[in-house]
């Protein structure tokens, strides 16, 4: 990581490698004490498509996209949602009043209301782990090796190299959110 380059955290997800085991979901729930019934991440399923016996099935893991242009940040009335220099979009729980406007604004349905605390919460890319030099919990445990995380601005990082070598997309490009989570199919 060059000292002049600003770091930008991002994820790359290779959907072909996802087996929909949902270990990432359990790991996240445990690591981040997510209330039962709520989720910071998910695995979407497309299919089975087609007609027997020519069938397809695709899985799409997801979580908060930590957008460069986050709609949640724009609509937050108290400024509780903020964006760190390294690209992480986080919630200041002291300022959050639980109005859930951000939940309406997010095209990815990435946020949830933590009823016990009365604030809105979401994936933080395991910021506490990133800051301690560890991988996010979901990435660490991914058995298929579908989830990758790292510094998008570092050309030597795994995520940067994956993006350089493969076609990739983001979800709901038309929303103009510029997510930090990329998909390789």
């Amino acid at each position: 990581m060059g000292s002049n380059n600003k770091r930008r955290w991002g994820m790359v997800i290779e959907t072909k490698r996802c087996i929909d085991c949902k270990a990432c979901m359990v790991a996240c729930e445990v690591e981040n004490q997510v209330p039962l019934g709520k989720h910071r991440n998910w695995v979407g399923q497309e299919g089975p498509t087609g007609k027997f016996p020519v069938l397809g099935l695709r899985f799409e893991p997801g979580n908060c996209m930590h957008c460069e242009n986050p709609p949640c940040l724009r609509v937050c009335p108290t400024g509780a949602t903020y964006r760190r220099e390294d690209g992480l979009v986080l919630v200041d729980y002291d300022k959050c009043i639980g109005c859930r406007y951000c939940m309406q604004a997010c095209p990815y349905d990435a946020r949830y209301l933590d009823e016990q605390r009365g604030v809105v919460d979401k994936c933080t890319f395991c910021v506490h782990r990133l800051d301690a030099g560890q991988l996010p919990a979901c990435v660490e445990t991914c058995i298929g090796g579908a989830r990758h995380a790292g510094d998008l601005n570092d050309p030597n990082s795994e995520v940067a190299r994956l993006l350089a070598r493969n076609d990739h997309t983001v979800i709901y490009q038309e929303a103009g959110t510029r997510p930090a989570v990329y998909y390789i199919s």
Partner: protein
Amino acid sequence: MESIEWGLLVVNYLFLAGVSAGAFAISAIGTHVGGPRFRHVAQVGALIAPWPAMVGVGLLVLDLGRPLAFYNLFLTVQYTSPMSIGAWLLSVFILLSLAYAALWVPAPLDNLLRAPTRVQDVAHFARWILLSPKAIRRWRAILATAGFPVSLSVGIYTGILLGAVPSRPFWNTPMLAQLFLFSAMSTGTAAVLLVTALLGTHRANRYEEERRLLVSTDIVLIVLEIFMLIPFLLHHALSPWSSASSIQLILGGEFTLWFWIGTILLGILLPLAIEGYELLPVTHKASATRHSLELSAASSALVLAGGFVLRYVFVYAGQVSHFLPVMAH
């Protein structure tokens, strides 16, 4: 995840804020236009304007995840957030409408309308002097003028609150602001009409002129609502697939009956018919309007109900609408 995060508390708030805004607006018009004939309209409008909004705001605070932390809204102004702007706007509106309502209190309460004449008397209430009728009229005009744009803004902002959210295709149209504005004006007018009609049972003159003003205003507003809804439907139906799919929610989907029966039939067409029937003799130059208090009350109640259902349909259907494709998860 298609949960309904904003439920009836939010629907009620949007509805009530609209009623308040519309009542104030009609009162402001009544203050400046038409003179003594429409004083009653202005008075009723002024007196009812603050309360729905205050109740609505109360509901909204209760709806928060952390109600006691609501003050955070007033520690900052987030210019990109319609909700932040709206919080400030609504606060100004409420204070303004309360002051305005105070100017319209009927006797004997108007004995409380006093003001200090000298700066040093501000802290000594006993020395406050009764406001003269001229002063009262002047202040009414000032507050009506100042508050009119604020009330319009309240009406518009409830639409912008939803309309500025691209992630909910059903909401994401600039027309939502106008639609909600006209709905606010018409429900506000209807509220004043309803109160007037109910009061009319106890008065001799039955406020016919006033009610005629209100009914005419309401007809205009309702017709404008129709003119807003048609482009809204067309715009969505012909839009990219997210919007087109979202409009299905009221064209066959789960909110179809609510919308067409609740909002359109009961909230727009039926009142239009009743009010048209009330005004028909006038347009045909008959002697007096063939209106009864019951008809006025009925049509205004229907408009109010329709306005509520409009908010309900939009708030709920919007949250069910989504960018496509939605992955099952």
